[in-house]
């Protein structure tokens, strides 16, 4: 009967069918923290807010790529560290440029972290209300910083204030520039009332001073000079001052100084930054770093703004260099930006703290606010405060005769902002908001012997929305900025 063979094999676990497989398949993570078991306690929230700081701290050291490269301060070197840098340097912005894409993505990751904290504030039942308010203030301050970077780069962007699903994200349009500024201002106002003052909280965290200073800056961008003055006056009444010596601002000694208003703290090798390597020669600088990144080189346009008697000249630019690798190399003329150069291993993390906003900028912002509220002598006085620290005396002060027109005033203000704040991520926004970027950037002296002409157009005021992000949304949802289609 082999001819008619029939096999039926059934392997079925019969007993305890469902009870058995649930214990196998329905597992809970024991070592992994997940969204399901985080943001629940006071301790969770304290760690979560550090996560928001971390996002900004990690990105900020390379903010210069976006806010300084397209200007007359620096130009791309012969070394390729960052894809797409040449296009940014030449103002041939393209929607598929990686730099804008990364900038967009890292900002929204930071915004996500801040949103998670803000929307989870009422989860814990062990979070004292004072801590709850402080954490809310910190999260809103940081969210404002992220959005301020975004709005200055792209104009209006999607306004995300809580976690969104992937489906919703694919249909979310850009908000207007005004709406983003409103969000920034309201976040900062909440931060101002919730945050502790300087000295009542660890250095490196947001304070009332930081919120007020940023409010002053944001209102100046919005040309609300009266409001700006209110907040800048508040900062002035707080415990900040100009350091005696400009060179001490970026140094590894006494980093929690009185000029820093919002300062990002870094620790070498643990969570450091490479900024001290970024502008120095590729082969390093004797006594400071055995290697450099030399991503960009100093442009002659910036170089020639500096006067010899100005103490900022030496603190910002080093003109002579010798190759530390070769014994017999001699000092040669090879100017580079040494503003952030501190001893470190080179092309690796350093512990240099970075000041997102510091008191000298507050004084210059106040000068601007005073000028536009009709107080030209006051405006000149505030510029002079910064100048006197730099020159050590009042011999180089401006007078009202130097500011007989708005153009003249802007000339001396922007000049001073260059000397004081160059490579601190202000130049591009300054040129855009004053409408001077076309005039200033159409022709740039890169070196004493090389002048380049760039094709700068009105639409360059805003960077292109990353094509990658447009592609990830449904057709027509994320609108490109004018001039990039």
């Amino acid at each position, binding site marked *: 009967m082999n*001819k*008619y063979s029939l*096999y*039926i094999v*059934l*392997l079925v676990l019969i007993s305890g069918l469902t009870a*058995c*497989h649930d214990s*196998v*398949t329905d*597992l809970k*993570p*024991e*070592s*992994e*923290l*997940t*969204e*399901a078991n*985080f943001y629940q306690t006071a301790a969770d929230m304290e*760690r*979560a*807010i*550090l*996560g*928001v*700081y*971390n996002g900004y*701290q990690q990105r900020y050291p390379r903010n210069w790529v976006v806010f300084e490269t397209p200007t007359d301060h620096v130009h791309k070197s*012969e*070394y*390729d560290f960052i*894809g797409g840098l*040449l*296009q940014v340097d030449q103002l041939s912005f*393209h929607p*598929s440029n*990686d730099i804008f894409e990364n900038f967009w*993505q890292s900002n*929204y*990751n930071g915004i*996500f*972290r801040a*949103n*998670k904290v803000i929307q989870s504030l009422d989860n814990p039942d062990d979070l004292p209300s004072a801590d709850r308010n402080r954490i809310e203030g910190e999260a809103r301050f940081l969210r404002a910083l992220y959005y301020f970077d975004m709005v200055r780069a792209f104009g209006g962007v999607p306004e995300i204030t809580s*976690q969104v699903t*992937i489906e919703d*994200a*694919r249909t979310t349009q850009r908000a207007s520039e005004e709406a983003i500024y409103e969000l920034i201002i309201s976040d900062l106002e909440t931060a101002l009332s919730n945050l502790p003052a300087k000295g009542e909280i*660890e*250095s*490196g965290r947001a304070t009332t001073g930081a919120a007020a200073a940023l409010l002053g800056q944001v209102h100046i961008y919005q040309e609300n000079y009266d409001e700006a003055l209110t907040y800048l006056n508040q900062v002035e009444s707080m415990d900040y001052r100009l350091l005696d010596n400009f060179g001490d601002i970026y140094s590894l000694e006494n980093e929690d100084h009185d000029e820093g208003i919002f300062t990002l*703290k870094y*620790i070498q090798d*643990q*969570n450091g930054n490479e900024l001290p390597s970024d502008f120095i020669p590729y082969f390093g600088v004797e006594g400071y770093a055995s290697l450099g990144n030399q991503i960009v080189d100093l442009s002659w346009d910036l170089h020639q703004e500096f006067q010899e008697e100005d103490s900022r000249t030496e603190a910002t630019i080093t003109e002579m260099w010798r190759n530390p690798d070769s014994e017999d190399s001699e000092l040669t003329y090879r100017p580079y930006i040494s503003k952030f150069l501190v001893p470190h291993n080179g092309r690796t993390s350093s512990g240099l703290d970075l000041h997102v906003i510091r008191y000298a900028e507050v004084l210059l912002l106040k000068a601007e606010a005073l000028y536009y509220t009709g107080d030209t002598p006051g405006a000149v006085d505030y510029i002079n405060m910064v100048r006197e620290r730099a020159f050590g005396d009042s011999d180089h002060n401006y007078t009202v005769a130097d500011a007989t027109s708005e153009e003249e005033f802007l000339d001396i203000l922007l000049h001073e902002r260059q000397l004081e704040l160059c490579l601190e991520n202000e130049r591009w926004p300054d040129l855009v908001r004053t409408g001077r970027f076309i005039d200033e950037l159409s022709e740039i002296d890169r070196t004493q012997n090389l002048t380049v002409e760039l094709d700068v157009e009105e639409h360059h005021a805003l960077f292109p929305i990353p*094509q*990658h992000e447009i*592609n*990830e949304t449904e057709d027509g949802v994320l609108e490109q900025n004018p001039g990039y289609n």
Partner: protein
Amino acid sequence: MAAVSNSYANETIRTLNNAVINPSSTYSTKTQWGLASYFSRVNYAYDETYLLSASIRTDGSSRFGPNNRWGYFPSASIAWRVTEEDFMSDLDALNNLKLRASYGVTGNFSIGNFAYLGTIGDYAYSPGGNYTIGQAQNSFGNPDLKWERTFSYDMGVDAGFFNNRLNIVFDYYEKTTKDLLYNVNTPAITGFTSSLTNVGDIKNSGIELELNTVNIQKSDFQWSTSFNYTKNNNEVTNLGGGVEERTISHSRGMDWILREGEPMFSFYGHKMLGVIQSEEELDEVATMTGQPVGTVHMEDKDNDGDIDDDDRMILGNFMPDFYMGMVNDVNWRNFDLSVVTQASFGGKRYNLENLYYQGATTSALLRPVVEGQWWSPEEPGNGEHPAASLSVLQYIGSNDYYLEDATFFSIRNINLGYSLPASLLEPFNVTDLRVYLSVSNALMLTKEGFNGYNPEGQTSGISGPNSYPGLNNGSEPLNRTIAFGINMNF
């Protein structure tokens, strides 16, 4: 557990208790995953002529969210041994003929544990100058994650002629993988640029042919040959999320594209027409912004006067059109010889490694990629090789200049042996003794214009939707091994 570097108090005690423990690299972890399966199967054979088998399995995995934990995987196959039928018994030449067909579904759950939940990672800050661990969510949860399934059909014929002196196996197959488990791009405003998702569908279809022949069958001389041929067509059939294509950009300029209807990860970039020889030519032809003389003249597909992303096109694929293999075994008296050959046609490689042999970096020079290079309008080379310094790489890397045809023919292995006669061995209690000489990678012939060291070499395979398969950025060259050996059995 790990110590902070240079934190040992002295050299005497070298255990961790003498050092500062680095909290960021010290951990223990517990994780688990579970898989529950139910399985049933039917086998049926009638007269050894009609064969049927069917099965179904159901698997539940803890790696998926509660919504989609279970997957169902049926399979079935039928076969008809035609030569067992009475009406075939007269055919002497055809001694075996079997027709078969099968269908099956298999599942893949090789993702991380709890990947359906957004996870929280450590992100430190240093308030007050103290390194302090903070936390943030570092992945986007997806409770709808489900099994990736592959649906396969196969139809085949097995035929044996002349007492199995000639055997033919032929198969046509079609495999469609659905709901591929990959990280896919998401709008960054979610906070994340990618999320593990069931992303899309990919279809592989093709034919496989195998021929085995016994060419000579004599007592002291045997020769047999085995030949195979495979042709596979790959096609992206669905990308999911309402998108029809995705490009993956490499920092040196080349893009890889996933486009519905095209093979996955096709090279996508500009078409090279030549080298821009002079300033006059530079003014005439369409260029990228800032493009200098001596770089690649690219095709202006949309005729708008400049070269930009809109001018990109599909330039080929890393997968070969088809490949073949042949093994010959010869035995003559006590000698035996085996030769394995292999050939592949039509696959392409993005040989970025050529860059390192063109003088732009401080490494060796390779004649075929240096000779003919553009140096200056006075020394423009042969018009095939652009200037290759790093500063102009962006005008070189984004087109098919580095894309090379990786077609090859190779002799993979030659093995020649001699077995000593048993009569000689008997006194030494040795059953058999064979000495042999084997050469692997004896010969590798590639097409002219292929400059890589290994046509199959690549430095990046497929690991998700953001992969660069076929990128060769310095893969290991083939090594030839010559071995002499003795096999002895007691």
